[in-house]
């Protein structure tokens, strides 16, 4: 028997490899130059001399940022190649190298780098250990990137678990916080529960088609093309379970129960990262799966996804109104935003795919900034995150209040912000596909949602005599930089959106059989 050496080209997953290698390096470096566990110190919890924000702890974040820079460089390199030769698959059809995956990877690297910057300052201020944090962020971004480029359901599952397991730990990172531990446990139990459904979906798809591969020879695409009028009920059932598993990750109703708890209990930089990154990764897998591979079955899955979209938009918006905690409110708002992106998924046209990419990129940049503001105002254990704690913010920090206003207006979808353009694009795609009524529901949900964003603004600007404790922002150069960047992106993309949309449109080509 001849041994046929498999053809291995690493270029397709070079960004992921770079991130994983950097994560290992960070862990290794942490053992030598990182801080020792502070529990052994007598002065536990107190800031130590010489540990300024950019003091003696800059090695690990710098290393992590270099990792993200390398990932972006390698992704751009892959873009040049697919631009010249067209989309391909690698690793015997396990990895898709196409414009879509490159776009998602670069966006994810940006989110990850912003999280590193925020996380560094957050952890130094609270005197928490850093090495594991950076390594976990790097690992989870690697998993998210793999989600976007997987061309086999098993790779999708592994990627999903890679980023989820890292996020379970990150959510409970601040172990002194009881609510953080609780959030981690809830997120973990529900996440593990939902990923078994995702896995069962893979099993049923495998049972129906005899393959877990999306594009390859005998894969799902070619099965759908060559087996007309076969009994597809098992495949449709499997696809439904895949939607359940991914719907959990993007926080779609009715799989959203973990979202408010995990968002509230997690450290705010992690919350922002979850809102931006895991939504993008989940939707990347959903878009590839539904709008490309299962496109021939669209009449079967579309009713389910329309139902999810409508319920998600309405429930997310309504429950956000009654929230008293700003992190929970932003969590429900992120649920509503998942619903808006779903309207682009059901459009199943190129405009929908590029619109969803644009939406997720702009939403991520906005929400990272919003949670950065929550982090700098929240205090050491993030106890000051109630809406009323923002009372008098304008008087205390006018510029910060102004930026928060901009971000909230963007989340609400008010013109001259990126959120408005993004909503316009996804709703436009759905109208083009003939789902005007879904867009009408979305518009109603946006109107409801505007109420609670405005509530924060009212509280913030209210000149109130009985301010119990004035909001106090504790921020260093890194937080200021990230918040400023997020605000700039929100404003600039609201005014000059066409370059990013054109990039997203250029990115909507997929590897094929």
């Amino acid at each position: 028997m001849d041994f046929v050496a498999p053809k291995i080209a690493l270029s397709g997953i070079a960004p992921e490899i770079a991130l994983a290698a950097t994560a290992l390096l960070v862990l290794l470096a942490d053992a030598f130059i990182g801080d020792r566990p502070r529990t052994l110190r007598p002065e536990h919890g107190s800031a130590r001399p010489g540990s300024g924000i950019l003091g003696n702890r800059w090695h690990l974040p710098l290393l992590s940022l270099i990792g993200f820079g390398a990932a972006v460089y390698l992704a751009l390199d892959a873009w040049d190649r697919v631009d010249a030769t067209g989309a391909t698959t690698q690793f015997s059809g396990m990895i898709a190298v196409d414009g879509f995956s490159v776009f998602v990877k670069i966006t994810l690297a940006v989110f990850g780098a912003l999280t590193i910057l925020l996380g560094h300052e957050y952890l130094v201020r609270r005197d928490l250990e850093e090495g594991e944090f950076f390594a976990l962020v790097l690992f989870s971004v690697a998993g998210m990137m793999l989600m976007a480029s997987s061309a086999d359901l098993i790779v999708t599952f592994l990627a999903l678990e890679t980023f989820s397991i890292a996020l379970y730990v990150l959510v409970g990172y601040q172990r002194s916080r009881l609510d953080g531990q609780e959030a981690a446990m809830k997120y973990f139990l529900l996440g593990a529960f939902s990923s078994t459904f995702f896995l069962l979906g893979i099993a049923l798809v495998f049972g129906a088609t005899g393959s877990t591969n999306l594009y390859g020879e005998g894969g799902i695409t070619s099965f759908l093309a060559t087996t007309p009028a076969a009994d597809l009920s098992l495949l449709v059932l499997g696809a439904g379970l895949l939607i359940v598993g991914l719907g959990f990750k993007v926080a779609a109703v009715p799989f959203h129960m973990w979202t408010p708890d995990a968002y509230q209990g997690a450290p705010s930089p992690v919350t922002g990262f979850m809102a931006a990154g895991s939504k993008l990764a989940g939707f990347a897998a959903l878009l590839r799966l539904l709008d490309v591979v299962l496109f021939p079955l669209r009449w079967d899955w579309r009713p389910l996804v329309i139902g999810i979209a409508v319920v998600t938009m309405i429930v997310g918006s309504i429950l956000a109104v009654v929230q008293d905690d700003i992190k929970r409110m932003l969590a429900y708002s992120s649920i509503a935003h998942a619903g808006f992106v779903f309207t682009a998924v059901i459009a199943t046209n190129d405009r929908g795919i590029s619109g969803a990419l644009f939406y997720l990129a702009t939403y991520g940049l906005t929400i990272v900034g919003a949670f950065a503001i929550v982090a700098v105002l929240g205090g050491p254990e993030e106890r000051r995150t109630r809406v009323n704690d923002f009372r008098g913010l304008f008087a205390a920090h006018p510029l910060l209040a102004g930026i928060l206003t901009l971000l909230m207006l963007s989340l609400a979808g008010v013109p001259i912000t990126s959120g408005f353009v993004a909503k316009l694009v996804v709703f436009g795609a759905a109208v083009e596909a003939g789902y005007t009524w879904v867009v009408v529901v979305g518009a109603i949900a946006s109107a409801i949602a505007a109420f609670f964003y405005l509530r924060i603004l009212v509280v913030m600007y209210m000149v109130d005599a009985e301010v119990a404790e004035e909001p106090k922002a504790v921020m260093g150069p890194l937080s200021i930089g990230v918040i400023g960047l997020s605000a700039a992106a929100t404003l600039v993309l609201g005014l000059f959106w066409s370059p990013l949309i054109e990039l997203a449109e250029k990115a909507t080509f997929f590897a094929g059989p």
Partner: protein
Amino acid sequence: MTSVSPEYFLALAGLMFTIGVVGALTRRNAIVIFMFIELMLNAVNLAFVTFSRMHGTVDGQVVVFFVLVVAAAEVVVGLAIIISIFRRRRSANVDDVNLLKW
């Protein structure tokens, strides 16, 4: 040698998965819930192996290895989270963790 029809294995897998779902939803101890989730994973493994035999390919059997590895990684993280909660609260009951609501 007579062989058992694969449908029986699928039925067993379905039964195990259902028991896992019901158990995970009704039990109150985090560790027991986690055990039921593991049962669900193993039910899916059985389904993979059975489908693999029905199709005459080894793909499904290879998948099982990946699932086992992922499940092991999940156990490590999950038990660590549950233990860290237990150390603070002296309880692994999911009804006791109720700081975060609505």
